[in-house]
């Protein structure tokens, strides 16, 4: 479990990149939901935390692939593979993320830490 930040530190409509390996992105939607997914687009190396958040969909800032933050599924190409989702808990007014134990779908050529 990663304690990311106080809930008040991530206003609605904002995103935060967390430098774990691989990095994750935490989003606070305009509707007030909080989601955590892998930060690196599954298509090519770009940070989804820098992307455009609309509803519970994130658009990659490089090629405009879209992912559903709830399911991780691809809503619009060029990405082909879903993004890994993580479980978010709010504890003591802090955002906490329980990392998925599934394999991440990192883009070709991107490796992190010990895996490289």
């Amino acid at each position, binding site marked *: 479990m990663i304690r990311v930040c106080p809930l008040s530190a991530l206003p609605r409509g904002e995103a935060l990149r967390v430098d774990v390996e691989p990095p994750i992105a935490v989003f606070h939607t305009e509707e007030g939901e909080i989601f955590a997914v892998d930060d690196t687009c599954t298509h*090519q190396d*770009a*940070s989804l*935390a*820098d*992307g*455009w958040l609309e509803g519970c969909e994130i*658009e990659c*800032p*490089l*090629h*405009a692939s879209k992912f559903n933050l709830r399911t991780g599924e691809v809503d619009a*190409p*060029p990405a*082909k*593979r879903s993004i890994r989702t993580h479980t978010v808990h709010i504890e003591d007014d802090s955002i906490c993320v329980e990392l998925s134990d599934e394999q991440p779908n990192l883009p*070709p*050529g991107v490796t992190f830490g010990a895996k490289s």
Partner: protein
Amino acid sequence: MKTITIVGASLAGLYAAQALRAQGYDGEVVVIGNELRRPYDRPPLSKDFLAGKIDADALNLESAGDDDLQANWLLGSPAVSLSTTTREVVLADGTRVGSDAVVIATGARARELPGTANLAGVHVLRTIDDAVALRSELLPGARLVVIGAGFIGGEVAATAKTLGLDVTVVEAMASPLAGPLGVEMGAVVSGLHEAHGVALRCGVGVQRLVGSERVEGVELADGTLLPADVVVVGIGAVPNIEWLVNSGAALGNGIECDHQGRTSIPGVIAVGDCAAWHDVRLGRPHRVEHWTGAMERPAVAVAALLGGGGWSEDRQVNIPYFWSDQYDVRIQFAGHAADADSVTVEEGTAEGHNLLAVYRRGDVPVAVIGMNQPRLFGRWRRQLNAAVSV
């Protein structure tokens, strides 16, 4: 319509096939490709693929789900003619393909320097085969001269420098990417090359390549001789439209189309690098070579071809967008630099290679460039798309 033929099996051709299915067309789809390979992504050919970080499989544009396309792939032989009256496409190997509609997506090829075809060590970069051939010569310590500081030239120079080559870039214009970015922001890209130890010679043309069997150097118009073990020619691309000269299709710099990709031949649309769609802003056909256009526009043209079906007849195309990764900097650009009379850095600095700058005509933003500024850039790009007419 029972059969639709797509001539061209790269990004635009594949996205045309996907758009046909997404928009409800359930007839036969034939895809013709001059290369033997299934559709692959070209931008990494000058970057990660050239650097050896990813293999050819990683370039595959299709996903498993694309089996749903149920397309009939005719690969390895280029189209050589299109009949205006019957829309029959004839391939170089003699195959004849009849259909009710045709999507032209034959792309462009790298422009070559005349008289260099038989000179070893001289490369262009457009295909996987090109990249494999070039990569085999990018050996540490070798002297590489890149002719042209456009996207291909800049990215090859950056990749080769990373691989340990001694790199010089020659550019006839006053700065790299002077056309798409303007000279002022082009100069920032110059600084990027220089900061990484790549020598840049701008504002001077190439006189000739020196060498008999293998290239030995590049002679510039001012008489300078740049010794070279390898030369990359990155001087633009030529649309693949010669096969249409007898088709009756209107041809200029590309296949001339209306603002939604319809050619002058009924039932024939054109997309991607070969197509010059009518640009409402410019009032004339304008060929766009960017990857994003090849990905976005097929859905618009296919909607026009199929005649609606729940898709707006008047779908707008987005403002031009491109990106380029050079060294550790991601350059992103959207809009029309040529329209601007000023460029203002709004965030970051040129020296820090982290600027965001807005191009304006009077007070009106017409384009935006970001260097390692993806978040701000994305906001500006959206605003411009909403505001700038295409």
